[in-house]
């Protein structure tokens, strides 16, 4: 099974992990990485 999230968030970074500007959404996960419920995927 799969869960797909699509959401709107301020600014943010591109996929390669560069951080754009202050206050934008920033990913904190890795492709192929294992995650558990409640673990942080990203932060605004």
């Amino acid at each position: 099974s799969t869960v797909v999230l699509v959401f709107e968030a301020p600014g943010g970074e591109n996929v390669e992990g560069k951080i754009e500007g202050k206050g934008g959404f920033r990913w904190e996960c890795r492709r192929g990485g294992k995650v558990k419920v409640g673990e942080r995927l990203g932060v605004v």
Partner: protein
Amino acid sequence: LRQALSKTRIEWYPIPVGLGIGFLAFSQFRKAARRPIDEEDHIVAVEESQSPGQKPKRIRPDGPWQVQVLSTMPLKAFSRAWGWFNSRPLPVFLRTPGFKLYSYIFGVNLDEIGNPDLTSYRNLSEFFYRELRPGIRPIDPHPNSLVSPADGTILHFGEVRPGGQVEQVKGMTYPLDALIGSKTIGQEFPTPPASSGTSSPGTNTPPELSQPGILTPDEEFAIVNGIHYTLPSLLHGTSSDSEPPLPPPLSESDLGAPTPNTVSVANDLIEGTTWHTLHPSASTKLFFCVIYLAPGDYHRYHSPVNWVVQLRRHFSGELFSVSPFLQRHLPNLFTLNERVALLGKWKHGLFTMTPVGATNVGSIIVNFDKELRTNHARGELARPGALKEASYASASEVLGGWPARKGEEIGGFKLG
């Protein structure tokens, strides 16, 4: 004729399973052959609320020969048979060794499950839908974090390009509205504002103040008619000395039947005309993340943030496996599969969560939606590509939808 019928001895013979599967494949193939085909030989998906004259959506399963064979297989029938088979009660003496073997093969951590007594799970379906021990999944405490809704593997994540394309790192791209339905289906939705941060239509306040927003408890701030309020004060009538007196306080039971001024205030806030985000300088973008749940993973999904679920769009679709292998070989996989798109708002705008089914887990559960039935054999949703939309606006008049709190269980996937 009567004598022949009454006197002829009836003998039963087992037929080879392959013959049975061949027959099902043939009947599925014939059904597919009868589907409406548009002028370019594409299978046409028909949407429930398709307005006359609207160009039908083209969904076309293509890929290597394995995928072609798979797309003619009666996957839904297999899924229902698999669900039926796994809901047969197992003998008690077989349960513990059986579930231990399953856990060993698929990597289930038996120390985490809520009910450690394996004999209490009557069948594999119940074991598959097991709960976890309370507190075993701590929720990230950061107020502005987005957390994982499920146990699993992160397949893709990134930014939705302008024009609504969800791009994968491995180049698999599909249009957003093919995944969660288009904006025009029954409900207007905010389109992602252009990165230049132009203000949302119809308001003349500066952009950083016109972001659509959401009521969330405790730490959010709101401005009503230019006066700053904390949220508890707004709903419960308590105000710090810096805030002017508010209308009479509401009791918890009152929230069930809000007074007109509460509704008008809440609507004001939700419509975003006076909403103030904590980062006024930010313009918003659209992001996506895809998480794959393997057979041994905990199969319930939780809310990644505080948000209000306003709409549910159930796409019947097929039940292809969503394993990484098929992901690589079947473009548009997610737009073909049975899925339930939950759409709503969080404090930064649009928020959607879409659980996608697969052949072994075709039944998608949403705890607060008792009407939802997926993996249906008959009825209006048996037609591939059909879509059914339901609104949760009545769940909470003040918020206009079902309030989902960060970390709260939303639903899950059941076998078959």
